[in-house]
């Protein structure tokens, strides 16, 4: 294949590729919007609850724990 022919092929692939990538990811935009439309926002009580547990703990204790866990993990290695 002559270089200029190859360049023309490459240009074709460039065009075709960008069109396809945009078409495909554009399709995904539509898909995501459709999903969002049919998925009601959830209440999200669970994570809040979990934070509460952590909030009740004094920062000192958490720091102590982190250090201990770190030490423990190190020792385990």
């Amino acid at each position, binding site marked *: 294949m002559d*270089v200029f022919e*190859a*360049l023309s*092929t*490459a*240009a074709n*692939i*460039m065009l*075709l*590729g*960008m069109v*396809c*990538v*945009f*078409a*495909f*990811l*554009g*399709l*995904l*935009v539509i*898909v*995501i*919007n459709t*999903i*969002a439309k049919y*998925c*009601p*926002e*959830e209440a*999200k009580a669970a994570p809040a609850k979990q934070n509460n547990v952590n909030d009740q703990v004094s920062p000192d204790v958490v720091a102590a724990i982190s250090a201990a866990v770190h030490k423990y993990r190190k020792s385990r290695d």
Partner: protein
Amino acid sequence: MEGLLKLWNDTGLANFEVGQVVMMAVGALLLYLAIVRGYEPLLLLPIGFGCVLANIPMAGFTDEGGMLWYVYHVGIETGVFPLLIFMGVGAMTDFGALIANPKMLFLGASAQFGIFATLFGAIALNLVPGFEFSLADASAIAIIGGADGPTAIFLASKLAPELLGAIAVAAYSYMALVPIIQPPIMKALTSVKEREIVMEQLRPVSKKEKVFFPLAVLFATVLFLPAATPLVGMFCLGNLMRECGVVDRLSSTAQNELINIVTIFLGLAVGSKLSAEKFLTIETIGILLLGAVAFSIGTASGVMMAKVMGRFSKTPINPLVGAAGVSAVPMAARVANKVGLEANPHNFLLMHAMGPNVAGVLGSAVAAGILLAIVGG
């Protein structure tokens, strides 16, 4: 005495060829970049070490029956290792930011222009005497612009295995260089005012949406681009395991132990392809050059697209987030955040940049699928 002679004849000293010495220096350079500079150490360290091992004279690591020979043939030639890494990356990726703002997918699409422009560039390089890149070679090189290691390795192993080493090294090196390559381009293409733009807070995304997302991506790929399903499919499997909430053991294993094990082997196997006769060629210089071009064009395309979109969008878009569309997760998103903070110290773009960032992963997997279908078929 005879034994001593035999030992001496077996030593590296007596058998070193110049190319091997140079390749060991390359391996040492990769180790330096990984350890001292912190360039993508998880991959560059095993790659560098594999490079050193592969170039030891008389050691036979890459001969049939040698350890690296097995690892390469079992893991890379079959395509299994990059696919498993991709599954693990899927299990580590949170698509929340993208689902909250799906327009960002266009930035991830736009940045793939780096890939296709580089393909053209690689073919154009054939005009320079000494270069002879086939269309398959050019495609494998161009995917460096996807800024995604496993995608580059997967495509290179299918289209241009003899260039695999150089392509993988270029891909991971430039991914590590993102904080150096991107900022000047980003600043050159935007005004301070544009970089100061504050984006609206993202809406919360429900668990349901996150579960449907990988399934929908898989479905679209199945319908329109089956050639991309190995990569996209394994990626979606990992992401589904992450988000569905019922297989946490599998998800945790996929993003920890399994990906770690595969990473060690993948790195060694890629390093084993860094032999003198394949790496010390003018092609490698071309590949490194084209890789830098690919990253730059991808960054620029992303930023320009973001500027265009910002003009037509109801909600403000900071053009810096477009640069994150090249992927290089999460480095490129961090760079966008950092450059944004320089312009406006109260403007945190990180979450907004994560959208185009993960879109870029999908974008380059799709681009790889297209190249496989057109060039590899």
